[in-house]
Each structure stands twice: as structure tokens, then as C-alpha cells.
């Protein structure tokens, strides 16, 4: 495949891209949760401008992957759906960022 494409250097393997995180909406969700300790559903919806249904669906996938935890908590006597990245989720995001940096910096256009 490398020979057919005529590309000069095919020795570098393509890094594994975490497809759970790679999806644009989920990438935005994970990035926002990464920079805070925790946030509720409303805050995340405001920051990402996703619709309620869309956000719920993506949160479900992230929770299924073990990257985040969703809990219902009372904060100042008001119920909130609180979202936070798990340690696994944070590590997965760190790996994702490193892999993407490596992948993009080793691209064919780079001197």
C-alpha cells in the first residue's frame, strides 16, 4: 500500500486513534470536562451548544466506555446531574492528544 501511494517513508505505524473520543462532539465534551473538576448537564450543554438529546446520547457512550461517571447529586438543595471524567477517561484523553500530536507532526508536509 505504501509503494502504491508512492510515499517515501512507510516505516512509522499509524497511531491508534481512540474513536470514542475522536468523534467531534465527544471530543468537545471530553475537552470541557478535562479542564474542570466536574460540571452539571446544563453547564456542559451551554458550553458545547449541543442539543439535549445529542448531548445525552454522547454522554451515554462515554459512560459506557468507562470514561466518565454520571451521578445525580444535590447541590445547595437543588438536584443536578453531575458529570466528571474518570481517571481512565483522563488517561484516555491524554493518550489521544499525544497520539494526535505525534500523528500530525509526522505528516508528509512537515520538513
Amino acid at each position, binding site marked *: 500500500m505504501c509503494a502504491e501511494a508512492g510515499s517515501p517513508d512507510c516505516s512509522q505505524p499509524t497511531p491508534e486513534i481512540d474513536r470514542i473520543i475522536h468523534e467531534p462532539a465527544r471530543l468537545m465534551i471530553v475537552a470541557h470536562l478535562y*479542564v474542570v473538576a*466536574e460540571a*452539571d448537564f*446544563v*453547564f*456542559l450543554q451551554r458550553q458545547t451548544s449541543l442539543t439535549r438529546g445529542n448531548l445525552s446520547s454522547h454522554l451515554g457512550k462515554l459512560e459506557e466506555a468507562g470514561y466518565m461517571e454520571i451521578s445525580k447529586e444535590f447541590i445547595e438543595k437543588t438536584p443536578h446531574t453531575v458529570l466528571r471524567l474518570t481517571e481512565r477517561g483522563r488517561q484516555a484523553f491524554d493518550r489521544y492528544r499525544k497520539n494526535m500530536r505525534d500523528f500530525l507532526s509526522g505528516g508528509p508536509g512537515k520538513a
Partner: protein
Amino acid sequence: MSQEIDLKQIERRTYLTLQQDGIWDLFVGLALVGVSIGLLTKTPGTTAILPILAIILAPIVKRAMTLPRLGYVKFSPERQSKQKRNLNAMTVLFTLTALLGLVVFYAYLGDAGWQKWIRGLGLIPLGFVLALAALVLGLLYGVRRCLYYAALAMAAFIASHLLDMHPSVKFMVIGGVLSVTGAILLTRFVRKYPRPSREQSDVR
């Protein structure tokens, strides 16, 4: 598709969302307008009480209006430490401002050389400290409009001194600009972020 993610920018934007409501601008502006009216009508009680009321009421209104619309967030330990450091810096600055205010007040009670000199400057030293407070606030919290407020405060105090205007004029001008800015920001904020229903704040 670009995969460049500027986490610092995201964090900063997330934090600054909380400052979009204009509530502090509105309350401080109204307090200054009140100070101006107090000076005009020579009711010192109004002059003293209104800024204190603003400091007490603004966080209460913010909690009642802003937080339900924006949602709950707990920032990272790094941001929380930074907020604590900023608060300490603002406390020191506020104390210095109050002390300088006392010095200026005391300058009007005697005829010593330094008292005459301060009287000669009018309220410009006070204006300088208020401008400095706004500048530091803007730099520490990243709220750019505070830098414009700082420039406005300095210009108003200097112009008022040079044109020999009544002291109430500068407070009315600064207070008026802050109040109007705050009101516009708050209106925009409330339109952009309507209060969500209980249903809307739940994951399905």
C-alpha cells in the same frame, strides 16, 4: 479537520462565561450613581452605605440569576488556587484603597504641608487607586472591560479636577457607564441563557 485543542483557551472561556452577566458592573455602577446623589444632596449616609450594599447584594443576585442559567461547575484545583490568590490580591488592594480614602479624608481636616498638597491634587489620588483596582481586577480575572473602566475612571477624575466640576459629576459619569454596560450585558445574558426547566437539566 483540525485536531488542535487549546485546553487553556477552553478553560479560560469556560471561566469567563461566568463573568458575562454584567451583574457586578450593574451593582457597582448603581452604587457609584448613589454616591453621586449622596454628594449632591449632602447625605453622607447614602455615600457610605451603597457600595457596601452592592458588595453584599451582587453575589446574592449572581447566585439567584446566573448559576441556575449557566449550570453548576467546579473548577480544577489549579483554578481554585488561582481564584484564592486573586481574592487575596483584591482584598489587599481594597484595603489600600480604603486607607488612601482615609488619608484623603484626613487631608481635609488640617493645614499641614502634606495635607495642603493632597488637597491641591483634589480627588485624583483616589481616582488613581480606583483605576488601579479596576486594572488589577481586569488583569487578574481576564475581564477586558475592566481595563476600559480603569481608563474611564482616571479620565473622569482628571477632567473633573481640571474643569473644577462638582465631585458628584465624575461618580455619576463612571457609575452611569458601568450601570448601562451592566444592564446591557445582563439583558443579553438572560436572552442567551434562559432558565432551564428541571427536565432540561437531566440526562435522559
